[in-house]
């Protein structure tokens, strides 16, 4: 871990050093390049591995009123199949009659197999208590899809409808600043400050965005699930809070995943 910190400091130093001689626009590009470089340096040792290891243990721990493990959880590829499962989420599940993302599906498994009351999650802060456990489980599951391709099944009518609802949500403007998702992610080749913004309407941008979350965030040392990512987007959009696992988060997930279909899954990602 210390080695990674040193690499980060080095990369930050390179950014600072380069600032002395170049023109502003060249500088901005160079700073972006340096961030990309330090991301590469860290990529072979993603700190998410620690979180995923906790999740793998937790998967096999008997918990809840039913004192059961999650080993029979069906994430869409059959009970207990984890390999490649999150690459195919969100998915329409016949047993619940709902389109579910990874987190809401894990909630179903916790409720039905273990008898855990998942309503608590909605009152729990990120990184704390039951939410910390959810994050570990997510890290474990998405690591098992790393290297797969985004492959969401858009044939069911329920998925098609969720896509349309997600698209509407993507362009929905509101709040004190009149922002929608599209305000920042609805054009090619834009950035906020130095942060590049993927155009999430298109395959390339959606694949890059959807395919690299959930992720470990170097800036705050936290592992963020997709629900957490979308929650913080809405915070910055100056919206009220999207409820954990609510349909708007799933609809947006379907919109992003379907737009990115066929792209590489590089989860857990590594972010600024």
């Amino acid at each position, binding site marked *: 871990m210390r080695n990674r910190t040193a690499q980060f400091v080095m990369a930050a130093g390179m950014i600072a050093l380069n600032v002395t001689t170049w023109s*502003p626009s060249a500088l901005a590009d160079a700073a972006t390049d340096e961030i990309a470089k330090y991301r590469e340096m860290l990529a072979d040792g993603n700190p998410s591995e620690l979180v995923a290891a906790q999740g793998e243990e937790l998967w096999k721990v008997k918990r809840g009123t039913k004192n059961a493990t999650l080993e029979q959880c069906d994430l869409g590829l059959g009970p207990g199949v984890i390999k490649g499962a999150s690459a195919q989420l969100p998915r329409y599940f016949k047993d619940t009659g709902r389109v579910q993302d990874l987190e809401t599906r894990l909630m179903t498994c916790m409720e039905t197999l273990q008898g855990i009351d998942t309503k608590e999650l909605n009152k729990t802060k990120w990184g704390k208590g039951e939410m910390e456990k959810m994050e570990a489980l997510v890290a474990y599951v998405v690591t098992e899809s790393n290297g797969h391709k985004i492959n969401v099944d858009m044939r069911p009518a329920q998925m098609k409808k969720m896509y349309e609802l997600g698209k509407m949500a993507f362009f929905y*403007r*509101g709040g004190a600043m009149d922002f929608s998702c599209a305000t920042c992610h609805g054009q090619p080749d834009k950035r906020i400050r130095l942060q590049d913004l993927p155009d999430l309407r298109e395959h390339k941008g959606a694949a890059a965005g959807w395919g690299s979350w959930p992720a470990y965030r170097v800036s705050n040392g936290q592992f963020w699930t997709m629900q957490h990512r979308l929650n913080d987007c809405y915070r910055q959009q100056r919206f009220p809070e999207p409820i954990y696992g609510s349909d708007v988060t799933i609809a947006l997930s379907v919109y992003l995943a379907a737009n990115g279909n066929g792209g590489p899954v590089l989860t857990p990602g590594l972010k600024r």
Partner: protein
Amino acid sequence: MKKMITIAAILAVTPLAWAADDALYADFKAMMDASFRSKGIVDKYRMYQLDFQKACSQDKDPSAKVMQAIEAEQLKTIRYPADGQYFGDWKQGEKIATSGKGLTWKDKTPHNNGGGCYNCHQLSHHEIAYGTIGTSLLEYGKQRGNSDEVVKYTWGKIYNAKAFNACSRMPRNGDAEILTEQQMKHLMAYLFDPNSPVNKK
């Protein structure tokens, strides 16, 4: 209130993409309503749309007629400084332009917000961390001069950008009470003052 009614009347006769499927749109509204909750200083009602927000919620802009109607209504919201003084202190303007803080559910108060200008615009000769969603405003005053017309237009654009482009991505800093009149005066100085790093190398 009158503003809302006028735009609503225009929207009612304008075929929009989602209007083709009323049932789907009803489901969408129900979904949105069930999916959000108040948090901190952001009340749930903030997710309900103003008429122009609704008109600007598709991949493409609405028709020219709708755009013009919105712009005419939004133009009426602009309040010019009562004392006729448009310029504050560019140094304070720079701080406001740099800060992107404010109006999220993590913020303690709805006041003391940043302008977030650098999120989207290049402004000074020195700041390299600028966004590109908006146009570059480098040498804004130097290139445009400071005629009454330019000054008044710029004030209006900061106050309510939707008066000039109905579906502009830029927030309505004055109309939506994001910034105070004094803060906007500081931003004006940052854009126009010959000694501001926006104009001076």
